[in-house]
């Protein structure tokens, strides 16, 4: 069988929905097990007291990058079929700023807010409600904002293409950076614990 599954097994709506549901359940379960349904834990990364989010993210990035690379090399995954989102520089910077402000204010990001809501936390439910309200508002605002939304396009850029390096070299660099960030996060947490011990 060749992945991505949506492209290659010509799954109908029910099967596609089943695959999406399974992945969603696994994702939610993993976040909850990592404690990321707690706003206190998530907010801790902004105060450098608890960098679990950073460590989970970089673990996930390294695992996914290595998985995609080696499954592609092995022939299980057709990497050319994996969707690469387009880059729009200024809109994405603005979106990132809005996202970061919301994350810091709420102490939850979209994924973890769903986890918190599913765990019965009221703050999670409120953030999910706000999230959908924001998406709806953006839907109405899309037409007037269309030219800004599509401004500064760079197409579907990848790191290997941007820096003229091989995919393998980009993967090695990513692994080294990821592990470095992970080690750095552990050191910051230890020093914070030592100061407040």
């Amino acid at each position, binding site marked *: 069988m*060749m992945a991505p599954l949506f*492209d*290659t097994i*010509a799954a109908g709506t029910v099967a596609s929905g089943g695959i999406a549901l399974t992945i969603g359940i696994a994702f939610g379960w993993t976040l909850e097990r990592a404690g990321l349904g707690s706003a206190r834990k998530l907010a801790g990364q902004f105060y450098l007291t608890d960098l679990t989010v950073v460590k989970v993210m970089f*673990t996930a990035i*390294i*695992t996914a990058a*290595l998985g*995609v*690379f*080696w*499954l*592609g*090399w092995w*022939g299980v*995954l*057709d*990497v*050319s*079929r994996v969707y690469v989102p387009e880059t729009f520089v200024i809109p994405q910077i603005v979106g990132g700023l809005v996202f970061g402000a919301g994350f810091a204010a709420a102490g939850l990001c979209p994924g973890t807010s769903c986890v918190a809501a599913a765990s019965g936390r009221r703050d999670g439910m409120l953030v999910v409600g706000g999230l959908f309200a924001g998406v709806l508002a953006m839907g109405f605002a899309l037409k007037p904002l269309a030219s800004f939304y599509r401004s500064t396009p760079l197409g579907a850029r990848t790191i290997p293409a941007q820096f003229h390096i*091989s*995919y*393998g*070299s980009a*993967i*090695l660099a*990513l*692994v*080294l950076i*990821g*592990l470095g960030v*992970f080690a750095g996060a552990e050191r910051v947490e230890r020093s914070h614990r030592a100061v407040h011990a």
Partner: protein
Amino acid sequence: MTTRRTFAITALTLGAAAPLAQTPFRRHEASIDVDELSRAIELGDDHIDAVDLAEWIQERREGLRVIDLRSDGQFAAGHIPTAENISIDALSGIAPRRGETLVLYSEGGAHAGQAWVLLKALGHERVYFLRAGLFEWEEEVMSPTLATDATDDERRVFERSEKVSQYFGGEPQRDVPRSTRALTTRELRRRGC
């Protein structure tokens, strides 16, 4: 050994080996059965005409994919309804799927003919191309004409075109003096051009 240490060592090992492997993209192995392809070309099984394609689109033929091989600018300016824009160098990314019928077209027919060979080599079974490409669609589906002194065969062909032309918003024209009417791609082919 802790889980973290195991993860770090595994990641470093796989990461260090990645530059040696270079790329995760599949190399697309392909083979050409020259006899089979030449038989298909001889029998005309390599192509369909624009009216055939129009009928397939109209009846929503299952598994049909119409592929426009032109640039994205040309595609945006106008294309056959339901077509997808895929460049020739991305064709190897289309894996053969059971029950699928691919119809390729380009501005004329050269690129589509070349792409047909590539897709057959990659193992696709039901692949066709429009021999005269988008020109053929424009002439035979969007603006079919019937000469005033048309033969019975020409009338039959026109009636078939007229039906699909109306479905796609085309403008069929009857009783056009032959002297003012340009030769269609179908007629050019009949004359051996």
